[in-house]
């Protein structure tokens, strides 16, 4: 298994380590998954090691045009330092990966993509990239997420710059107070809370993580709670809720498809779907009785299986089990009463929006 630069720190903090996407990662710390989830959700701050994700720089002339071809977004007209959530599409209009691409300048972009898709994405990008454009993996960088109501206040204490005006989905280049090293601070996250993802040199990562850990308001959070936090928000997880076979329109990511991009890979499938709708849609499922819904469980309506869950788990905030799945628009709509098959029981549930909680990210400045 590969290890991140924080591997020692996790073990010192008594994390329970598991294998994920080829990396040895913390699934939880002694606080436990439920309390770690509640720590972030209920007003404290959590730190997450997400260094297993791929970080890349794409640089060269007409870089923006290239990125606007392999995604449905428009990077030509996008603002500098705007972090766009988007998808890599294939010729059939399916999703290769979901990722965040930030414009540093017209000819230079910073990319963060999923660990489980890293090899696949590299191969795909290299197969499409024009010769003059460089595509470089930042293997000497770690990535640390800081998420929770007071994350701005805490992060500010460790850097020289003022980030109070940094808007949601924007990046600011900052320097560490400890040694003036340059870091990328992006006001993004996967929890629905205000927060940041910090791209930092491997050599600086452990000290930064331990400095953060020293704050009373901070707890380290594992991948278990990371998953339940995103599930409450309705954020999809690639390899579960998104795949090569799902289109961004079916996935509810139609907003990612720019109105000003009419020529990208898969556009002849995706653009008509955006205009006319498609016949299946990603929706939420919420159990109305006790039990836990999990990925792969069947969803039943009028004695017929209408779909399977692509994600599922327990929501500590709602105190019930929730999940996501794809359903034909003719067979399921929000409000429908259904059953989820759990082992040999059928548990009463309802179809909902996949967004179970309102994001608190929009309340960030500007």
């Amino acid at each position, binding site marked *: 298994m590969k290890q991140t630069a924080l591997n020692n720190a996790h073990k010192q903090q008594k994390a329970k380590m598991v294998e994920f996407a080829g990396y040895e990662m913390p*699934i*939880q710390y002694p606080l436990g998954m439920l309390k770690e989830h509640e720590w972030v959700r209920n007003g404290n701050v959590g730190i997450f090691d997400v260094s297993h994700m791929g970080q890349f720089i794409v640089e060269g002339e007409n870089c923006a045009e290239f990125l606007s071809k392999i995604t449905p977004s428009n990077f030509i007209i996008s603002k500098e330092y705007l972090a766009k959530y988007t998808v890599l599409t294939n010729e059939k209009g399916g999703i290769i990966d979901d990722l965040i691409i930030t414009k540093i300048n017209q000819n230079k972009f910073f990319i963060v993509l999923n660990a489980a898709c890293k090899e696949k994405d590299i191969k795909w990008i290299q197969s499409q990239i024009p010769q003059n454009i460089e595509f470089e993996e930042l293997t000497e960088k770690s990535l640390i997420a800081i998420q929770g109501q007071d994350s701005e206040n805490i992060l500010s204490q460790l850097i020289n710059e003022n980030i109070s005006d940094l808007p949601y989905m924007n990046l600011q280049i900052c320097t560490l107070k400890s040694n003036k090293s340059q870091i990328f601070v992006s006001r993004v996250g996967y929890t629905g809370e205000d927060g940041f993802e910090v791209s930092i040199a491997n050599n600086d990562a452990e000290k930064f993580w331990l400095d953060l850990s020293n704050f009373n308001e901070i707890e380290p959070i594992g991948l278990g709670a990371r998953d339940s936090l995103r599930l409450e928000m309705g954020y999809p997880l690639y390899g579960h809720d998104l795949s090569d076979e799902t289109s961004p329109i079916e996935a509810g990511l139609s907003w990612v498809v720019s109105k000003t991009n009419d020529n990208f890979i898969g556009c002849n499938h995706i653009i008509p779907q955006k205009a006319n709708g498609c016949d299946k849609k990603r929706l939420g499922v919420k159990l109305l009785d006790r039990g*836990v819904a999990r990925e792969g469980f069947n969803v039943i309506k009028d004695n017929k299986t209408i779909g399977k869950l692509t994600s599922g788990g*327990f929501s500590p905030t709602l105190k019930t*089990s929730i999940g996501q799945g794809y359903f034909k628009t003719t067979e399921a709509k929000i409000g429908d009463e259904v059953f989820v098959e759990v*082992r040999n029981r059928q548990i009463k549930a309802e179809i909902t929006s996949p967004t179970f909680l309102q994001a608190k990210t929009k309340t960030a400045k500007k």
Partner: protein
Amino acid sequence: MKFTKDHEWVKIEDNVATVGISQYAADALGELVYVELPEISAAYNKGDAFAVVESSKSASDVYLPISGEVLEVNENLNSEPELINNSSYENGWIAKVKVVDDSSLEDMMGEAAYQKYLEELS
């Protein structure tokens, strides 16, 4: 109190066995969010899965250490599954079973032997 290799515990009094899972098992599972209790008067053979305990991440079967018929289940676990984590041997009991065949007790471990078994596991 006797223990199985799968970390169930059993206490027998007047031919009624109270069954639960050990602190070690509860710690390994993490905070439980749901317990599937058996039906009253259901009959099981030794080794049958008679309950399921679920954490955020996974579901685990609980095996009955003896053969018997379910007399009573701990309804408190419906609203407070975490009783198993906080009080594995007292308030976190899972079911009371009328013993039909307890010959398997001989093969189970006493408290000291179970402690030793746990040391060997780690």
